[in-house]
């Protein structure tokens, strides 16, 4: 049986654009059909914004890549129409265990709270997610939505202009040219777009190698994230074990800096390492082996005129914390509605600058977390090693030390505090749903709160009367009237001690503003701010 990543999903086919005498102008061209590019394309097409995706390949990305998808990503996938497929196929988990030397020092629960549709995390091979996203692209195209992917279309040159971008595209049948109102580069950490534009990508290099081995085995390990500091089977280094679907297990072993990378990838070196970890008697088969190093870095700006950067093309983090793919999908979530409003003429072009502000803010947060985790996992000096081991020694018996143990702060969405689109906050309402925060899911009469939201702006009217269908200069607000009668989760997450509240929610489900009562003029002001009209 062919593996999923060996099958061409969108094989090259000649397009009329290639034979046109005039260069075709597209609204949005996305470069890269990875999870970020596909998520953005789905978001745009679902808003009836025509989008063309160009990819130098014609299939899902192969090998071992992202595996941990966080709750917020699953909520975005729900909005894009492939949350169920991902969760059904994925392995749901929410518990981690930490080991030091030969003993377990503690365990943690990532979502110790009921009343959410989605779990803290699922593990799912990236190629499965890409396939679900691609299937969704096909479903939208079949339903007449303006979405198209061109395989084996490699962008060779970019000409950036004030109001458009010109692209030279190479295909198996030769080159052709395209133009786009907006170009979004989702072409990965080695982004050719970034390179062609000569843009900086600076940050910190970590001098360490990590061996990734995906193995197929029947094993008794529970569905949890297991992390070892200085275990007997990998002395002086770290190790990570994660379960994926189809009896595939991800093993990540720190190897140190001065190693022979080619030698360490050979099965005769890898298999003894894995046997030392898993036990001599455990039968397994190697599915994938690679050795990686990483950097923590970002571009200075994610917007360069009409060219935008998203995902790994814009920022890179260490893998500890699952903040790479998850933050990339949140980039797409942040950008889709903004591009749609600008292209529809409902918001000025400067709304796109808020994408830069908010996602640079998120990238900095992710880089900080992943740098700190890396410094804890791989101490770079004698004294940092002494403190690290002191924390681990204390953690087994002293709960106070456990928050200091950092085996990766697992991805949670950023709250855009002081963001340029944030409007009024009302004192006394819960902190977790303040302006800039993503909505917190909660059970409601119809099922789940997040499933009830429209694709555009929404008003949550909680215990307060609020008119339906308020329109603010072309932006129509969908009102959801909610009651906290018998709904403690909704009350705790949105009201606190207040009797009622009105929340203005952006199309990406982040809170724009909130009030203790209905005030139409205040809502209009907040919509103007959230769309960068003021």
């Amino acid at each position, binding site marked *: 049986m062919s593996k999923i990543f060996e099958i061409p999903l969108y094989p090259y086919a000649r397009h009329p654009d290639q034979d046109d005498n005039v260069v075709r102008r597209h609204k949005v061209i996305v470069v890269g059909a990875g999870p970020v590019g596909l998520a953005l394309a789905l978001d745009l097409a679902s808003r009836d914004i025509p989008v063309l995706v160009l990819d130098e390949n014609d299939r899902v990305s192969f090998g071992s890549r992202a595996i941990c998808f966080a709750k917020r990503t699953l909520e975005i996938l729900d909005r894009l129409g492939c949350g169920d497929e991902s969760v059904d196929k994925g392995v749901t988990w929410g518990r981690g265990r930490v080991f030091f030397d030969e003993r377990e020092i503690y365990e943690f629960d990532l979502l110790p709270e009921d009343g959410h549709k989605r779990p803290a995390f699922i593990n799912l091979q990236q190629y499965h997610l890409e396939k679900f996203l691609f299937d969704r692209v096909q479903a939208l195209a079949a339903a007449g939505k303006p979405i198209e992917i061109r395989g084996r279309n490699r962008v060779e040159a970019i000409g950036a202009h004030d109001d458009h971008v010109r692209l030279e595209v190479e295909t198996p049948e030769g080159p052709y040219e395209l133009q786009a109102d907006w170009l979004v580069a989702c072409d990965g950490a080695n982004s050719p777009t970034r390179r062609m534009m000569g843009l900086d990508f600076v940050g910190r290099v970590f001098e360490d190698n990590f061996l990734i081995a995906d193995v197929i085995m029947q094993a008794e390990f529970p569905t949890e994230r297991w992390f070892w500091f200085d275990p007997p089977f990998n002395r002086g280094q770290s190790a990570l074990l994660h379960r994926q679907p189809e009896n595939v297990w991800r093993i990540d072993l720190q190897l140190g800096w001065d190693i022979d990378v080619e030698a360490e990838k050979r099965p005769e070196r890898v298999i003894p390492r894995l046997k030392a970890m898993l036990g001599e008697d455990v039968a397994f088969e190697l599915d994938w082996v690679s050795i990686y190093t990483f950097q923590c870095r970002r571009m200075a700006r994610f917007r360069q005129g009409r060219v935008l950067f998203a995902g790994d093309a814009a920022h890179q983090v260490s893998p500890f914390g699952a903040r790479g793919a998850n933050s990339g999908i949140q980039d797409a979530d942040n950008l889709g509605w903004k591009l749609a409003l600008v292209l529809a003429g409902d918001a000025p072009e400067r709304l796109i600058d808020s994408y830069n502000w908010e996602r640079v803010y998120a990238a900095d947060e992710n880089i900080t977390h992943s740098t700190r985790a890396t410094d804890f996992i791989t101490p770079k000096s004698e004294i940092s090693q*002494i*403190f690290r*081991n*002191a*924390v681990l*020694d*204390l953690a087994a018996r*002293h709960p*106070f*030390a456990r928050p*200091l143990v950092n085996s990766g702060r697992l991805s949670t969405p950023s709250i855009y505090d002081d963001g340029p689109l944030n409007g009024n906050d009302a004192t006394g309402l819960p902190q977790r749903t303040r302006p800039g925060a993503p909505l917190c899911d909660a059970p409601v009469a119809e099922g789940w709160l997040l499933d009830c939201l429209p694709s555009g702006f929404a008003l949550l009217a909680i215990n307060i009367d609020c008119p339906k269908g308020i329109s603010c200069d072309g932006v129509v607000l969908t009102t959801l009237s909610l009651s906290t009668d018998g709904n403690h989760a909704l009350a705790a997450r949105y009201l606190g001690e207040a009797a009622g509240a009105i929340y203005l929610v952006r199309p990406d489900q982040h809170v724009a503003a909130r009030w203790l009562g209905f005030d139409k003029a205040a809502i209009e002001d907040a919509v103007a701010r959230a769309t960068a009209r003021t």
Partner: protein
Amino acid sequence: MPDLRRDANLQDADGFYADLLAVHDGLTKAESDALNARLILILSNHIGDAEVLSQALHDAAATAGRQD
């Protein structure tokens, strides 16, 4: 906002100092370093207040030790 106490606050300065040395008795340098690190973490947690801790870190870093 609380400040780091800079007045003498130990109930029995000589007794505490003797106890501090006593827990290091017979330890190797590495063991003593580890004990000191644990002690710093335990005391830091007891203090808890970020501003006080920040002042303590600053005072410690700003006091030049003797260069041997």
